[in-house]
Each structure stands twice: as structure tokens, then as C-alpha cells.
């Protein structure tokens, strides 16, 4: 099969490319000119020079492929909204249009779990739960992922050959500081003492990078799942406390974690929020995001298990070991 992959040099995309090559697929990977595109060639893929911000020139190539894996996105936390919209939303729509008007039997859109409406603690999020109702109060990345997910799901519902995969917080070997120690509100007070703004009981929606790659490939090759949406979380019941205990165990040196519950900060944050509303009649984005992050949510992965045949191949302690292992 002929596959087209976007984001092929990224954290998840490079693994998707590697797996597809291993499967024997002919892989075309979109990449900007640069050193990392050499890794793609080394992995056995054909590099298609281009950029999600200017997707037009590569659409002919996309139209010739059997499966399109749209893994790439602008993930930076800085930049203008227009740039995020062009790269993460417009490019998604144009790739989808080109693929479906061409030969593609499947368009796999890799989305995110940060897109949901979480207005209270203890929600059970399914594959069809509502999007955040205040995307403008979220960061540009999340807002653009909501927009793109909405478009992909709209095509999926309309019966087009689209499958949406939404992995959780990705972690793995490449960026242990950000991914294993969670790019959440946290700070190392001492080398072995971590301060986390959260509670031990908070449910962590984590997906090990290799498990996420499994799900993406399955979404591309499994028959009879067109129009489906899959939330992909390794262990929906994993708490933050358990996670750090396992991490401490796996690590050579034990790790102590101090929790600063959000509710301790909440009164001050809410007061500023209230002031904002009084003056501008609009909630304060940081307050919205902080209070949202306090609400523990369970993500149902039944669909991924039942219809995709996916289950996390690598379990937590092994995944953490792999992630922390120093590269040879």
C-alpha cells in the first residue's frame, strides 16, 4: 500500500513512518528540507518536500496514496492564530479533500484529547462527547485542534472514509523531561523533589508513544471502521499518585512528589476572573484553563478496544523504563 504521512519527523509521526515501512508499505513523508528529513530517508521513506503551512504543492502526491496519516500539527505554544489556523485547520481540510477526491481508501486524522468540554469533576468522556464550549479561552494549539477535529468528524459523519484517533498526553523516550515528567504545572524543587499543581487522585490520560503509533496504524488499515472516532488512552483509571509511584520505582533514584491542589489557588484565581467579568464581561483565560485542569475525567476507550482491536502493548512500568533509558 502507498501511504502518505504528515508530521513524519515528529514524536509520533516518526514512529508511524517506521511501522509503515516495517509493514512493507511504500511511505511518502511530508517534511521540510533539513537534517531531520535524512532520518526519514534512513528509515526507508520517500521524503516529499513541503510544509503544512503551504500544503497546495503536495496535494497531487497525496491524491495518489491509498492511506493518508495526518499526524503533523503546529504544536508550539507561541505564534499567531492565523498561523495555527492555516497549519492545523486549513491544511487538514485540504489534505482530507485531496485524499478523498483521489485514490485514498482512508484518511486518518490524529487529534487530541484536550478538546473536550470538562465543566465538572468526574465526567465520563466518550468518543462522541462535546467539545469545549469556550475554545477561545484555550491556547491556540488546542483551539485549532478542536476546529480540525470538528471538520474531520463532520466528514466522518457524512460517510466519508475518515477515521479520527485522539491519543492522550503522549510520553516516551524522545523528550523525557517534558513527556515523562509531564509538561503540566510542575516544578523540580530539588533534583528528587517535584512540586505538582494537582492532586494524587487526579486521573492522568496518558498514552505511551508506541501504543499511540499502534492505534494510528490500526486506524489506517482496519477494515470497516470508516467514520469512526477513537479515544486512545493506555489506562483510563491511572491516577497521578500511581503514576509517580511507578515512576519513582522505575527510576534509579526515588522521586518525592509534593502536591499543591488547584483549590488552594482557586479563590485567588476566581477573584481575578470575577474582576475581569465585571470590567470586560468575559472570563479570564488562565482561570478557565487552570480550573478546567483540576477536573478529573475518565476517558472511555471501549471503541478503540472493540472496533480497532487496540490495546496498550507496552504497559506503564515498561514504558517508563524505555522512556528513561539513556540512548546507547
Amino acid at each position, binding site marked *: 500500500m502507498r501511504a502518505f504521512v504528515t508530521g513524519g519527523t515528529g514524536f509520533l509521526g516518526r514512529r508511524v513512518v517506521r511501522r509503515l515501512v516495517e509493514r512493507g508499505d511504500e511511505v511518502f513523508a511530508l517534511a521540510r528540507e533539513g537534517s531531520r528529513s535524512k532520518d526519514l530517508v534512513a528509515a526507508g521513506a520517500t521524503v516529499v518536500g513541503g510544509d503544512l503551512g503551504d500544503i497546495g504543492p503536495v496535494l497531487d502526491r497525496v491524491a495518489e496514496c491509498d492511506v493518508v496519516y495526518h499526524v503533523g500539527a503546529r504544536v508550539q505554544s507561541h505564534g499567531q492564530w492565523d498561523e495555527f489556523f492555516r497549519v492545523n485547520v486549513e491544511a487538514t481540510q485540504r489534505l482530507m479533500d485531496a485524499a478523498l477526491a483521489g485514490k485514498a481508501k482512508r484518511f486518518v486524522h490524529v487529534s487530541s484529547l484536550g478538546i473536550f468540554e470538562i465543566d465538572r469533576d468526574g465526567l465520563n468522556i466518550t468518543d462522541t*462527547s462535546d467539545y469545549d*464550549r469556550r475554545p477561545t479561552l484555550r491556547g491556540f494549539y488546542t483551539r485549532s485542534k478542536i476546529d480540525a477535529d470538528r471538520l474531520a468528524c*463532520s466528514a466522518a*459523519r457524512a460517510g466519508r472514509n475518515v477515521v479520527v484517533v485522539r491519543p492522550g498526553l503522549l510520553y516516551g523516550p524522545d523528550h523525557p523531561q517534558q513527556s515523562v515528567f509531564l509538561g503540566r504545572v510542575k516544578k523540580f524543587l530539588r533534583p528528587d523533589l517535584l512540586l505538582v499543581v494537582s492532586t494524587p487522585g487526579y486521573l492522568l490520560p496518558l498514552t505511551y508513544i508506541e501504543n499511540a503509533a499502534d492505534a494510528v496504524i490500526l486506524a489506517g488499515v482496519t477494515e470497516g471502521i470508516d467514520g469512526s472516532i477513537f479515544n486512545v488512552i493506555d489506562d483510563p483509571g491511572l491516577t497521578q499518585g500511581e503514576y509517580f509511584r511507578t515512576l519513582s520505582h522505575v527510576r534509579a533514584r526515588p522521586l518525592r512528589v509534593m502536591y499543591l491542589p488547584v483549590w488552594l489557588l482557586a479563590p485567588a484565581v476566581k477573584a481575578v476572573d470575577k474582576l475581569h467579568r465585571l470590567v470586560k464581561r468575559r472570563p479570564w483565560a488562565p482561570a478557565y484553563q487552570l480550573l478546567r485542569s483540576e477536573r478529573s475525567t475518565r476517558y472511555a476507550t471501549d471503541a478503540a478496544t472493540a472496533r480497532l482491536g487496540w490495546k496498550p502493548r507496552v504497559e506503564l512500568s515498561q514504558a517508563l523504563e524505555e522512556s528513561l533509558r539513556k540512548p546507547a
Partner: protein
Amino acid sequence: MTTNGQKTSGMTGDRLRVGVVGCGTIASAHLPYIQKAGGELVALADLSIRRSSDLADRFGVQRVYRAVEDMLAQERLDVIHVLTPPQSHASVAVAALDCGIATLVEKPLALDLREVVAMAAAAKRSGALLTVDHNRLFDPPMLEARRLWESGKLGDLVAIESFQAGRASERAWLGEIAGGGLGDLVPHPLYLQLYFLGEVEELHATAFSPSGGTNPEELRVLMKGEGRTGVLTISMNAAPGMNTLKLCGTKMTVEVNLNNMTVVRRRDYEVPKIIAKPLPNLDEAWQLVGQTAQNTIDFVRGRIRYYPGMGELIARFYQAVRNGTAPPVSIEEAASVVDVTNRIWNDLAGDSRSADRPAVEA
């Protein structure tokens, strides 16, 4: 909790399931009123994903479509707002009405009577309600003026005069409708006039462009209706912006200011001559001061917003949909605005006859 993936049928509780087609400028005015009127905005459709995504983000809408057909097929809507450029009103409305969806169309309902006939026929076939956003008729001071007329306090209404000054908003599609920017402005004052005039027996229009442009910018229309005359003026060059309607009855004259949301009555006083001159002025000044103060308080407290008449019209339409009663603006009223608009253009072109007018059946 509603879901973004399931096709839910019918009304959820009392809330009507609402879809919006066309996410341009006017959609931002409609959206806040949908929720307020007891609707649940479930989906948006627009050819441009930038427009639909932007609106969906601002209002937390769960689903967007590029093709209206996809939206109609995927969503079980109770109500649809058609806010596309005028030239596509008819095709979108007919498709929605054929699905049995109550349809509210932005003004003008259509560009010609044939389109109106097709829309009316679709509404009749499916039994779904059809109305048009003649929102100015429902602005609070207009409702007050209507009450004064309908209760007989004006006496016999004999003369109507409306004056609108200001330029048309920039719209990409203005070049595609008759009269361009002026064509976009005509429906509002015209439906206000026609509400009181009834059937227009005679019409004379004159227009020109001071800058010598292709489309006129200054327009005056003289109409003879059922027992009264009307003068409609639109000036795209006069400043400052103005939007007034004067209703002259045999007992009272009422002047509605739709920019400032006031309605001032001028009455006859049976008083000594010495104060007969100043008294009406003082009375009018007092009315203006009182209403301005009240409007300011209401605006600050969030009781009135922009396009208040639109909110009222949407609320009445949803009520009509729930109760199966008549919509706030009838198809005949809407048809008559479309017809007289075209008679104005024909008259300007030298032919003031009613365009070979097909009968509109409601």
C-alpha cells in the same frame, strides 16, 4: 449531555434544535438570540471553514459543515436560519423546507417573486413555517408605534415618511444584487413602509449617484398605498447616519428613531394659544429625555442589545414553531417587499408596472 456524534431526533425537551447556514457578519447578531429564545444551536454551515470555525469557537457550537446538504442529512433540525447572500436564499430555504424544517431567512426573502413562489410552495408541501427577518418591525419603539396605530390612537394613518442615511456595509456579494449597496439597504425601510401602506397602487422612484457611479446612492420613492401615501428616502451620502420613520395620523403623529430607539408622539393640546407653541416642544423633549435615560439603563444592565427587534422576531418565530401558529412575518408580507423592491428598480429603469406577478400562495 448532548453528543457531537449522534443524530438526535426532534426537540430535546422544550429546546428547538437550530442550525445556521451562512456564518458571515449577520450570523454574529443572530446567534446570541437563538439560545435566548429557547433554541439549542447544534450546527453551522458555511462554504468557508474559516468563517464557520471562527463562529463555532466563539459560540461553542459543536458541529460545522461546508455543504448544507450534509447538515440537512446529518442533523435533525427543528429550525434553520438562512443567512447566506440573498441570491442563494431560495435554494437553501427550499431544501430545508422540503426536510420539514421551519425556516427563517435573512432579508430580503428572495431576489424575485418566482423564488418566493418556490419557497412558499415548499413550505406548503411540508407544512413547515417560513418567515423572513424583517427585524426592524420588532424593535421596541416600532412595536410601540404599531400599537398606537392598531389601537386607533393615531386616528386614520394618512402619510408615512422614512429617512435612512448611511452607507451599506461592505459585503463581497453586493455586486451581484440589483442596486448594489443601495439594493442591500432598501428592504429595511421598505418593509416598514409596506407594513402600514398595504398594497402599493402607485409608485414613483428617482435615484442618482453624486459620484457618477454605476449604482445609485441617493433614492426617493413615492408610493400610494391603501388610503395613505408613503415617501421613502435613502441617502448613502447624508451624515450623520439616521434611521427614522414618521407616521402621520389624523389624531397624532409619531416619529420613531430606530438608531436611538425612541418613539416621540406629537399631539394636539387644547390649551391657551400662548402655550400652544412651546408645549409640544417641551413634551417631545421630555419624552426624548425619559426614553434616552431608560434606554441607557437598559443597555448598561444588558436588558437590550444590538438588533433588539431580531431577538423579538426570533423569539416569536420559535413560539410559532412550537405552537403551530402564524409566523411573525407572513410570506405575503415578504413577497410584497420583494415585489415592490423590483418595481422600484423597474421604475428607475423606466417601467413601474408590477413585474408580471405570479400569485404567492401561503
